[in-house]
């Protein structure tokens, strides 16, 4: 008997995972669920997460053995709690809006890039470009972060308990960073706005990044964030802001101004 084979699905660039079947392997217990990601691809893990959060309305998901795969937990646009029991690769939890994420291991570069709102707590270290273009929400890294952390940051809070690499806060436009450890060369280079607090030594300041005057609002903000995340009393911090010599949004077109709001 002749059979007609389904049309071959082929991505000549090799960039797309064509298997879009939802694995449906999670164990669901009321509003909680967990699943093992060891044998799943990136796309399958993300599809399973969306099935649980969007379709079943699960509010607490634990992903075991994420295996440092890239692009996990991306684009979740709902309130929920997600725990990754292990380490993640590049672009972890990017573009999220609402979730509260806990990663018990390390992450690669660009974790939480473009996060709109939510919370992400990383127990280990994070790579370069952590929280690139962060728009809102809190990112807490218990370890160290790489270069250009918070590049193009447009809002939100980055709290790092360890050291930060070079060019941290590069072209930062709004938001806040608390670096408890040391900061590398070029801190806050070409920043437009925002505030950077540093507890350790700063190797060098970037262009137009200058010391700022400490106010009661700074004390309230730092103390509140340390309290929320159970970090005890905050250390003594130096404050850095934009010197307003290099860039000034007030002189730009209205549409340019909107880009950072």
């Amino acid at each position, binding site marked *: 008997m002749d059979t007609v084979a389904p049309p071959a699905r*082929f991505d*000549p660039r090799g960039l797309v995972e064509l298997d879009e079947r939802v694995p449906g392997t999670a164990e669901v217990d009321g509003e909680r669920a967990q699943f093992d990601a060891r044998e799943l691809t990136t796309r399958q893990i993300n599809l399973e997460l*969306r099935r649980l959060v*969007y*379709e079943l*309305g699960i509010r607490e998901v634990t992903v075991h053995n994420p295996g440092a795969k890239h692009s996990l937990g991306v*684009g979740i*646009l*709902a*309130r929920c709690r997600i725990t990754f029991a292990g380490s993640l690769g590049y672009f972890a939890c990017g573009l999220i*809006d*609402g*979730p*509260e994420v806990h990663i018990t291991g390390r992450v690669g570069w660009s974790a939480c890039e473009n996060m*709109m*709102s*939510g*919370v992400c707590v990383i127990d280990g270290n994070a790579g370069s470009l952590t929280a690139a273009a962060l*728009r*809102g*929400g*809190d990112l807490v890294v218990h370890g160290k972060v790489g270069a250009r952390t918070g590049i193009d940051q447009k*809002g*939100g*809070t980055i709290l790092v308990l360890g050291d930060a690499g070079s060019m941290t806060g590069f072209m930062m436009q*709004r*938001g806040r960073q608390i670096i408890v450890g040391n900061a590398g060369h070029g801190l806050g280079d070409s920043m437009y706005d925002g505030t950077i607090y540093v507890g350790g030594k700063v190797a060098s300041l970037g262009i137009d990044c200058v010391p700022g005057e400490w106010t009661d609002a700074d004390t309230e903000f730092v103390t*509140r964030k340390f309290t*929320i995340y159970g970090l005890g009393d905050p250390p003594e911090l130096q404050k850095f802001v934009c010197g307003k010599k290099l860039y000034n949004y007030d002189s730009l077109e*209205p549409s340019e101004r*909107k880009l950072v*709001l």
Partner: protein
Amino acid sequence: MSETEYKVSIDAEYLAGRRFEYQEDISQVENVDLLAATPGPDINWLEDVTLLEEDGVPAVFDRYSNSFLKIYFAIPPGREDEIARKVLIKHLESGNSYGITLKERHCKFPQPELGPWVEGSKMVGTNWTAPVLEGWEAPQH
């Protein structure tokens, strides 16, 4: 607006074609719970939302539609940012943000229509298909 008319500031009511009650009546937003409306134990992303001004009128910026939402009622002194945040959350939870309208029409992957602001809102983007250009044929690889 005619095609030749140039408008610099596009506000939320221009996009929606109407003004909303919560822009004119503070009692409409007084009961908005900012902590409940945001992830985490504080107001999270709303920390970056403050009262601004557009066309000389107090306004809050809606990042989901890239437009200002003007506030026409008198804002009690000392509560400027709080009221701005409440008006914005009311706007988002009501589904009146133009960005939400665009979601219904154009989003390419399944997502809750009202995002993280309203629990259990309907899903949109579940049946999106790529448009096909007339006369175009897929390459043979």
